[in-house]
């Protein structure tokens, strides 16, 4: 369970995040929806303690991210926007490196890695060096290493970026599985269909602020629109167009 409370973050004069509050619950998929530059990535970076918010509070399973960043990181599985792998290591070695850094002992790490390789159907690439991996193979490896410590909360920054249709479907199934296992899943996206297909709750961000928060149905209802896309456009107002201008 993740709780963001009135987060603010500025870079110089740019106010990237200006008052973001929401909750992502266990056993639910929460979507962070917003246009490019709306503040999604910065919000996520604060949640996974890479950055300190200028003000506001973050609680992960009740732990304060400012006071106990290491404890918080142990409860988070993160697929950041940057998901570079070590090219000269095999997929298995890449995952094992993170398992060791997460403090898993060798035996439980091995068991956990086997399980993930199986679940993500990547046994055939497990012992290949990641140099030359396809986009989907790289994503699987990055996912596996993010989840190697069996975290209760999973954060993903635009996970379907650059994936083909088949891979996108598989990823959605995977996220649903994480939900069914009782985890708190939070992902950011600028793709409407993603949200409609997956989310139990949607948090819409525009210009660093939360402009709407609720179930997809509730948001459609609130905006009085049939399609989520129309609702989205209505809710964020002219913000998206201003970003483009």
């Amino acid at each position, binding site marked *: 369970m993740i709780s963001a409370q009135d987060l603010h973050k500025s870079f110089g004069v740019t106010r990237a995040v200006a008052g973001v509050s929401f909750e992502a619950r266990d056993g639910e998929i929460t979507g962070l929806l917003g246009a490019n530059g709306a503040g999604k990535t910065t919000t996520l970076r604060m949640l996974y303690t890479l950055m300190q918010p200028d003000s506001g509070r973050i609680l992960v399973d009740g732990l304060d991210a400012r006071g106990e960043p290491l404890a918080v990181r142990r409860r988070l599985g993160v697929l*950041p926007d940057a998901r570079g792998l070590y090219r000269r290591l095999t997929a298995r070695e890449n995952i094992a490196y993170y398992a060791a850094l997460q403090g898993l002992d060798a035996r439980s790490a091995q068991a956990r890695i086997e399980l993930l390789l199986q679940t993500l159907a990547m046994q055939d690439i497990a012992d290949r060096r990641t140099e030359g991996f396809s986009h989907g193979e790289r994503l699987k490896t990055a996912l596996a290493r993010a989840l190697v410590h069996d975290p209760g909360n999973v954060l993903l920054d635009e996970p379907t970026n650059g994936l083909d249709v088949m891979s996108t479907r598989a990823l959605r199934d995977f996220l649903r599985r994480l939900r069914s*296992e009782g985890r708190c899943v939070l992902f950011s996206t600028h793709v409407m269909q993603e949200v409609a297909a997956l989310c139990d709750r949607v948090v819409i961000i525009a210009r660093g602020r939360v402009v709407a928060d609720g179930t997809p149905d509730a948001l459609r209802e609130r905006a009085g629109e049939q399609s989520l896309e129309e609702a989205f456009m209505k809710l964020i107002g002219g913000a998206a167009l201003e970003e483009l201008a």
Partner: protein
Amino acid sequence: MSVAPQPLDAAPRQPAAPGHRAGLQLRAAGIVFVKECRESLRDRRTLLNALLIGPLLGPVLLVFLLRLTITHQLAQANRPLPVTIIGAGNAPNLVAALQRAGLQVLPPVPDVEAAVRSQQLDLALRIPAGFAAAWRAGRPAQVEIIFDSSRRDTGPALQRLRAMLDRYSRVTAAMRLMTRGLAPTLSLPVVVAERDQATPQARGALLFAMLPYFLILTALIGGMWLAIDTTAGERERASLEPLLINPVPRDRILAGKLLATATFSLASLCLGLIAFMVAGAFLPANQLGLSFSLSPRIVGAILPVMAPLVLLLATLQILVTAFAHSVREAQTYLGLVQLVPVIPSVVLGLMPLKAQLWMFAVPLLGQQLTVMQLLRGEAISLPEAALCALVTLALAGVVFLGARRNYASERLAITA
């Protein structure tokens, strides 16, 4: 991607009890260290630099240059000296004596001054027509050497010719004194005897004044790619951000990377020393009355002297590369760092200072002096060596704090 239908896990396993992860903080640096070493051992570029180019650069260059100069000098000394002689018929005895000393007579040319000036001739000797008359009368008989002092390459030939004439003159003077019943030593009021106190080993050390610099350069080259790859490279390939999300303090990660860099530097240095030991055998140093042997005992002493410096240099490399956003940028910075160890070499070369205590407190200079002492076969004094090591380690600590500060910055992970 496709996902098989096996269950991932029954329920999320909440983080294990703290005891389970005890010692992780200390272990983390070790985990990073092992991973960086393993990855680098698979990188041809890193291996090539650390294990081949770095260690071999110094010895190969040294052997090549020394062989070149030594064989050149030896060849010069034994070769006949070709000299154009004008008026050889005026002093056949002198010319014959010069020929016995190794002079090769070249036929005269019309305008010898112009020929020397236009560099057609290196050197010419003119024996004037009045030579024989002056000789017989017992007056100083003059000969002229025509040369161009602005040409440095004819210097050795000129010296040889002067020495030949001088010897002939002295022998003749001695003979004249003897025929008059006087002791030939009368014409030698003062004699100078030179007693060089340099041991053959010390003269060899002079020859190897560049060795400390090469050793430092070897260490720098050995750690270079590791430092670049583990900091700027990780940043460029967007693997730094996910790495920093692991529950490990950043300074442990930095320490692991530093250890890996220092280890490769040290390995490079060891190989370099072995290469120098082998290279010593290929030098014609004995022909010049020099002795240079990098015995295992000396190497064993050089290593602990250099080790703190290796750590300092690795820390410096990590600090500098952590500032860079890309591999290319890091390369540029490290290129500048490689110039730093030249400074003490140049200072020592320009001002051959007598070693004083404060110099041992200057990293680079201290190691350079200590290694030179070892090479000269002298005993190093322990307080000075300890001072040198301590100051170097302290500076490495300061540089590490700087790198750590840089690593703690929020911007670090964000690739842009």
